[in-house]
């Protein structure tokens, strides 16, 4: 009896590791260039912005605002540092400390979200809560550095894309909910083309991101990820 229980537990542990491996594979790309539309709504109104993002292995990210009221702004995340370029500013701003918690383009994403380390297996311990319908997974941070100390995921059983995610604070308070839809397979990786982020601590606040263009494992010039290039 004990042997069977141990075997079941070990099988379960293997399962969660395999699930997280698949999940990681979807977000672990050599590089990507993506264009997306952000529709930001709150109790006082709504606005739309368009962004183009460049990412490469290692986490370097560059975001250019290509449409909407903040057109021309650029953001670079490099070596865990975040730099902002504003067309009216003559210097590149390095964002740090509490400013990282500020909203990105007024959306429900913070700058801190952009600087997150995406290596789930390295930073989180996973537990499979349920596998009926979706893989219902709870991730607990291995260290205090992580912005979200807990993440609750509902992963699609076929694509391992989270269709619903709830992000929690250290005290266990639900902060944000992300719902994803329109899952597509692009060059062997699965992506949700539409995601809706709801700030759970605010009333009537949501951001819907729709990917309009995506290229994976494409060659991106190194200069894109330099501070100097931001001002060009």
């Amino acid at each position, binding site marked *: 009896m004990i042997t069977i229980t141990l075997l079941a537990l070990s099988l379960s542990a293997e399962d969660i590791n395999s699930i997280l491996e698949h999940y990681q594979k979807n977000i672990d790309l050599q590089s990507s260039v993506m264009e997306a539309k952000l529709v*930001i709504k*709150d109790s*006082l*109104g709504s*606005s739309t*912005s368009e962004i183009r993002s460049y990412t490469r292995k290692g986490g370097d990210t560059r975001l250019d605002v290509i449409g*909407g*009221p*903040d057109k021309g*702004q650029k953001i670079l995340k490099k070596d865990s540092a975040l730099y*902002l370029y*504003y067309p*009216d*500013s*003559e*210097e590149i*701003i*390095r964002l*740090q400390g509490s*400013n990282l918690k*500020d*909203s*990105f*383009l*007024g959306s429900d994403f913070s700058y801190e979200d952009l600087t997150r380390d995406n290596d789930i297996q390295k930073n989180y311990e996973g537990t499979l809560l349920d596998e009926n319908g979706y893989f219902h997974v709870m991730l607990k941070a291995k260290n205090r550095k992580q912005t979200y100390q807990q993440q609750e995921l509902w992963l699609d059983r076929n694509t391992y894309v989270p269709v619903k995610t709830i992000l929690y604070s250290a005290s266990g308070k639900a902060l944000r909910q992300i719902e994803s839809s329109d899952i597509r397979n692009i060059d062997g990786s699965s992506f949700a083309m539409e995601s809706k982020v709801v700030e759970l601590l605010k009333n009537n606040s949501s951001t819907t991101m729709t990917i309009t263009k995506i290229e994976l494992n494409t060659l991106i010039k190194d200069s894109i990820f330099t501070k100097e290039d931001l001002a060009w």
Partner: protein
Amino acid sequence: MTLSLAYRNILRNKRRSILSGLAIFIAAIVLCLTVAFQEGMINDMVENIKNHVTGNVLIRNKEYGEHERIMPLQFNIPKVGDVIAKLESIPNVERATPKTSIPVQLYREGKTQNAQAVGIDFATSGFFNQKGTTLVEGTLAKEGTKECVITKTLADKYSLALGDKFTFLSKTATSGSNGMTVTICGIARFQDSDVEGTSFFLPYDTLGRMLRMGDGSLEIQVFTTKENMASRIEESLQRSDLEIRNWTEASIIIKMLQFTKLIYLFFEIIFFLLASTVIFNTTMMSVQERNKEIGTMVALGYSKRQVMFLFLEESAILSFFASLSGSLVAYVLISFMHAVGFDLNAMGGAAVNGMNFSSWIYPWLSYKGYLSIILLGTGIAVLTCTIPARRILKMEPAVALRSDC
């Protein structure tokens, strides 16, 4: 008749009369000075609030007022130029000027510091048309440029000089963020402690562009030649989306000041009551010492009430002249202090930032103020003396005539 008698009685014992009046005299000086400081401070605050915060009438977007706590910049007054043109055509409106004041972050050497960006029309704003504001260096910023005027305090704090540039960051009307680099074209010194802190001024259209407000501004300050013009302006503008308030309603500080004035009046009364105890004592002693005189007067046909009024007249004359002379001395002192001024910061005034206090106070008391102190001093002294004087009403003339004094 009794008045000249009362006057003679006061002069009969000059030393005691002077001593009695001295308390009222000192109280009048102290109260005049206190009220002059209070008035000077309040007058300056009112001036600062009108010039820097409200104007005579303050106009804002109604929805901005409802959500002010979260500073929703999207609820600005669009096409502010058109609204101002309409306002300036209303009789008794002297001028209308746009203003957008928001907390921002100064970006200096990788660090951010809190500051206040104020977007104004330099030609019409009350900020640079006020006594006590000095442009220490440079010029005012020109419309549409990325120039700014900073306060002397800000210049000293961050070692900024004329021609230097700095970048500031802010939330925008579209809920995003923006940054702008501006060049310092002027350095000014303000007496309003709220402004002199870490404020900097730039053209309202430049700030509006940076905040994604287009041709809008958060507020319009209307300066009028008549008070309480809000309802008249409301009728003329016919704009239900705007909140139009008189300066007395728009500033919470003014409401607090009105209450403070009542508290001061209470203290004035207490102070004069304390000073009147000396006259009270003198009157009581007089009544006791002048028993025979009271008896004689009643025997000669004066009514007891007339005799009592004689004593009260003595107190009134004494306290009136004491209050008058105290006020005259105070007038000389206040006139001197008004010309010289007092540095409030040197007296710990920095602790009251946030209430539009001026860093320099020029004590001032109106003639009405002097008159009210003289009347208050006299009135309270006479009222206090009615207690010992009423003993005369109970006195029997025959008993009084037989007494030793």
